[in-house]
């Protein structure tokens, strides 16, 4: 069985930052592997270690810079990587779900996986929609917000738990081929070992242009346009305690005593 994992490099914004137009100024951004995708990669690698999967391939939509992040996934045990990028994507502020679906569909058609794992969402634009949209587009079954996976290779069924709100989980059986969107906490993502990092250097990252995957510029015409970005207005009317740690802790203690919860 082949598992394809979508891996995204996301930008994280520093505590203090400035906005330039419709972007956070580059100086305040740090790039990292999307948290949810980290769990998806781990789940895929465990499927390989446990038997059902023969190969784990990652796919990323991202510029050359994202190869550093892709290497992280390779160091954790993915076998090889595909990276889709095109100059035409440089100027797109916000890749909408449809565009990502189109790009990933083309890769799925080429790779022909049995199972696709994605993170539930990405930490930057948080659409939370690409996995399910992709599943529908390629005619796979799917399950969103999966926080437990028991894969039955003989039956070709993924027994999953979907984490609903309020401490309730839904138990669902999903036929493969399928796309599962993976929630954090499903496993404990490993750290990349030194050996893994070394091995990752020689693993293949295949760059693909739109042309390479048989698409033209129409496929990346986004329906969504970012028109403004701003810091949300603080609605805070909190009383902030001033002073050093001992003074602020003293005032906090006073409140706790006043409220009668601590003595």
């Amino acid at each position, binding site marked *: 069985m082949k598992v394809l994992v979508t891996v995204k490099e996301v930008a994280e914004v520093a505590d203090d930052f400035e906005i330039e137009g419709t972007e956070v100024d580059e100086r305040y951004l740090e790039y990292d592997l999307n948290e949810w995708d980290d769990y998806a990669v781990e789940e895929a690698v465990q499927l390989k270690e446990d038997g059902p999967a023969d190969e784990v391939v990652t796919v990323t939509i991202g510029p050359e810079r994202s190869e550093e992040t892709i290497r992280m996934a390779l160091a954790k045990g993915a076998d090889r990587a595909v990276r889709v990028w095109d100059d035409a994507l440089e100027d797109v502020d916000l890749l909408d779900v449809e565009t990502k*679906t189109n790009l990933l569909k083309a890769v799925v058609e080429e790779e022909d996986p049995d199972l696709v794992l994605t993170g539930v969402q990405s930490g930057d634009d948080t659409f939370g929609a690409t996995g399910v949209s992709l599943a529908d587009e390629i005619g796979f079954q799917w*399950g969103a917000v999966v926080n437990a996976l028991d894969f039955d290779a003989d039956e070709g069924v993924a027994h999953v738990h979907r984490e609903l709100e309020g401490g309730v989980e839904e138990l669902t059986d999903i036929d493969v081929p399928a796309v599962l969107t993976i929630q954090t906490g499903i496993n404990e993502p490993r750290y990349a070992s030194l050996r893994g990092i070394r091995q990752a250097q020689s693993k293949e990252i295949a760059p693909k242009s739109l042309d390479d995957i048989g698409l033209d510029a129409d496929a990346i015409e986004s329906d969504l346009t*970012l028109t*403004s970005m701003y810091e949300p207005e603080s609605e805070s009317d909190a009383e902030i305690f001033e002073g050093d740690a001992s003074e602020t802790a003293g005032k*906090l203690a006073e409140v706790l005593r006043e409220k009668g*919860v601590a003595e």
Partner: protein
Amino acid sequence: MSPDVLAVAEHRRGELRDVSYELLTAGRQLADATGGDLHVAVIGGDTESFAEELDREGVDAIHTVSEGEEFNHDVYVQAVEALHGELDPQVVLMPNSVNGLDYAPAVANRLDLPLATDAVDFEYDDGLTVTREMYGSKVETTVEVGGDQYAVTIRGAEWPGAEGVGDADVAEFDADIDTDTGSTVTGFEEVGGGDVDISEADFIVSIGRGIEEEDNLPLIEDLVEATDATLASSRPIVDSGWLPKNRQVGQSGKVVTPDVYLAIGISGAVQHVAGMKGSDTIIAVNTDPNAPIFDIADYGIVGDLFDVVPELIEEFE
């Protein structure tokens, strides 16, 4: 195309969820702007009684689809697709809930509609503009949605729930649904339970990512012991396996309403806030003065928990 809005209600285990009523308010807001009617779909379960409850002020029509007891994404996608074909509405509104995430993207894809998820606000003026957050709520954005028909999911608790008794036309809709699908819901499971019920606590000390590593947990446990508090946490602490699931406060954890909620090193992501905003008094300790937790806190300390907590322990020892 009609200028109408179609809102899809959500229910679980025999009850409509709050977001259903919020969808009615958001849907009415949009329908007023587009100059159309507000249609509501309710799919599966006891549709008759759900329709009665959903008949609130501002709702023009309710379409019931009797298929299955609980949510199934294949059924929902087919039902919404069929209703869309019938009504041809300008906007389909769905919840940005876990189940919303499980069918709304497929609806948008199948109907070839642009999709804007997790809307916290929107405006319509000859075109749709949606307000969303990015980078873990650090920035807010406005997004213009192209085309003339849209799919939008709304964040819970951003719109008030619709009230008042309505006068909607209620009708059964025959969606001709293929139930031979590739996914089957086999049951539900409550998680948590365990030794402590944090939803019963009067005083909660709750920790988040700011604690940095598991080795720092004893510091917080000392505070909990010194103040006779109950220990809880945000999601990352549970994901890391440092505390059991029954300690998690938030959308996917427990909802708590203590007299005092002391949030230490918690930034206040919307999913966390959903679980604790009903606390009488909220106190936050965080190094980032812009952390969203301060927006809902009554008292705050902008500072390093590793400086503040030892001092606080001393106060109570």
